[in-house]
């Protein structure tokens, strides 16, 4: 490969494809390099894609894209050892105006990539990029196992483990507490059974977050697909390391919880996967531009862990990176100064504005694990006590419940926690 491209995109995930599609549509000569045998082959997420941001690239994509179900209900589970408290929100408006869709990445990503290919981008699968090509401190292309390829701008969209951003010197190694390890199983069940178990219509789905199911900053997730359920856990790497427990053992404990086991009962395991999620937030967002290079998506650590958003930040950052390159091409200036417009665009968009708003939240939760351990337990204990019918007088019952709560968490701590939460989100 000796040809020179306007831009090389490394990684055919949501960020990379959004960038490639934007640039190809803008008339640029774009090459996309994907290390997997096809787009999506290396990808794993919870998860959902979001209508609003996906539609900016592909209007009414759900009519042709391989989506699983649209989400009509969001569930929040608070687990204790053998009980749960469940809060959920179902809304028929989600049937009228779709909000999010569950997808399998190995199916959705190839479809999404086709969009960029149809717009003129060249996609080459099975190609690992080994390093960046640097000349006089500028990135001028990439080194692949099939040879060097040159371009005016390289967009690193190579995911959370981004070797490229590191090689270019844009990123340091991620500290343990800024990253979450997710372990997931895809479990097959007949379509009707999924719909019965979750009380769903034919195309409808649920998205669930479950806390209280493990050590430290730890959460479970559950999504319904057409005829599979995606069930998984995410645990902060520092807490995983400290707990001395194995990821698969934690997952098995979760899956065998008496409230979870019946949901996936008689299901057939189809796939066991694991992936890192960069949840450190604003302060861990990498440097995202330099002479001849931009970074997008997980590679730039653009994940909003509070609202469980990632694919939309990836797509939007890819799109903004693409727009910046189109403009840079007009000026024929690919210096840091010229490409810095990308950072400004991100700062002006929800991507960095949301992360900035939540700047202190990841650190707060990672050093206040009571929200994932003590509180779910206390909630279950109180719910149980409240529902017991016996000879105890209600006045005594309420007194006892208060004592139970304050034993778990002192009055002062409760007030402090409430105050900190209020401050974080206001």
């Amino acid at each position, binding site marked *: 490969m000796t040809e020179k491209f306007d831009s090389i995109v490394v990684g055919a995930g949501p960020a990379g494809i959004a960038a490639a599609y934007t640039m190809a549509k803008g008339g640029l000569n774009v090459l996309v390099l994907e290390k997997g045998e096809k787009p999506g082959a290396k990808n794993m997420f919870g998860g959902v894609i979001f209508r609003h941001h996906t539609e900016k690239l592909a209007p009414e994509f759900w009519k042709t894209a391989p989506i699983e179900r649209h989400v009509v209900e969001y569930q929040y589970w608070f687990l204790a050892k053998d009980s749960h408290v469940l809060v959920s929100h179902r809304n028929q408006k989600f049937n009228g105006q779709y909000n999010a869709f569950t997808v399998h990445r190995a199916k959705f990503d190839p479809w999404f990539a086709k969009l960029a290919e149809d717009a003129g981008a060249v996609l080459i699968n099975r190609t690992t990029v080994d390093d960046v090509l640097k000349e006089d401190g500028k990135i001028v292309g990439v080194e692949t196992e099939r040879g060097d390829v040159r371009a005016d701008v390289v967009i690193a969209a190579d995911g959370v483990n981004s070797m490229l951003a590191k090689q270019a010197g844009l990123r340091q190694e991620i500290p343990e507490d800024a990253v979450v390890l997710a372990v997931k199983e895809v479990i097959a069940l007949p379509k009707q059974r999924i719909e019965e178990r979750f009380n769903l219509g034919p195309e409808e789905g649920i998205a669930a977050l479950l806390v209280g199911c493990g050590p430290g900053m730890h959460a479970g997730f559950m999504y319904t697909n057409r005829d599979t359920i995606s069930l998984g856990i995410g645990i902060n790497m520092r807490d995983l390391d400290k707990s001395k427990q194995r990821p698969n053992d934690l997952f098995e404990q979760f899956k065998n919880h008496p409230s979870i086991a019946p949901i996936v009962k008689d299901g057939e395991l189809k796939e*066991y996967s694991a992936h890192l999620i960069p949840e450190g937030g604003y302060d861990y967002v990498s440097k995202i531009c330099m002479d001849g290079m931009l970074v997008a998506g997980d590679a730039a650590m653009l994940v909003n862990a509070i609202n469980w958003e990632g694919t939309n930040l990836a797509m939007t950052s890819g799109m903004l990176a693409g727009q910046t390159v189109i403009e840079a091409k007009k000026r024929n200036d690919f210096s840091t100064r010229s490409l810095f417009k990308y950072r400004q665009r991100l700062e002006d968009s929800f991507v960095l504005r949301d992360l900035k708003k939540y700047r202190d939240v990841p650190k707060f939760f990672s050093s206040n694990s009571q929200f994932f351990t003590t509180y779910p337990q206390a909630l279950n204990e109180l719910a149980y006590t409240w529902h017991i019918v016996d000879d105890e007088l209600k006045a005594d019952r309420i007194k006892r419940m208060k004592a139970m709560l304050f034993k778990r968490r002192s009055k002062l701590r409760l007030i402090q926690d409430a105050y900190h939460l209020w401050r974080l989100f206001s």
Partner: protein
Amino acid sequence: MSITDKLYRNRYKVDEDSHLWIKDLKMCVKCPFEFACIRVCPTDVYKWEENKITITYDACVECGACRIACYDVGWKNPKGGFGISYKYG
């Protein structure tokens, strides 16, 4: 269900060469991280056998947990098309 049984459900294309390695084998003997590589790996890639770490790289799903947990782990992407190839993801 054991990890081995689970991994049978996954699709891999196994390369002859490992994409994982230990940078300094001597460090493992007095591992300062209580064998974090073994503990954090979701697919049991690492084992301590006969005074050294062994690496079953063909089980790796390329999550990167090991390289976050220990800087002595050498980690690179498998060659194009090799390694884990998710059918669902």
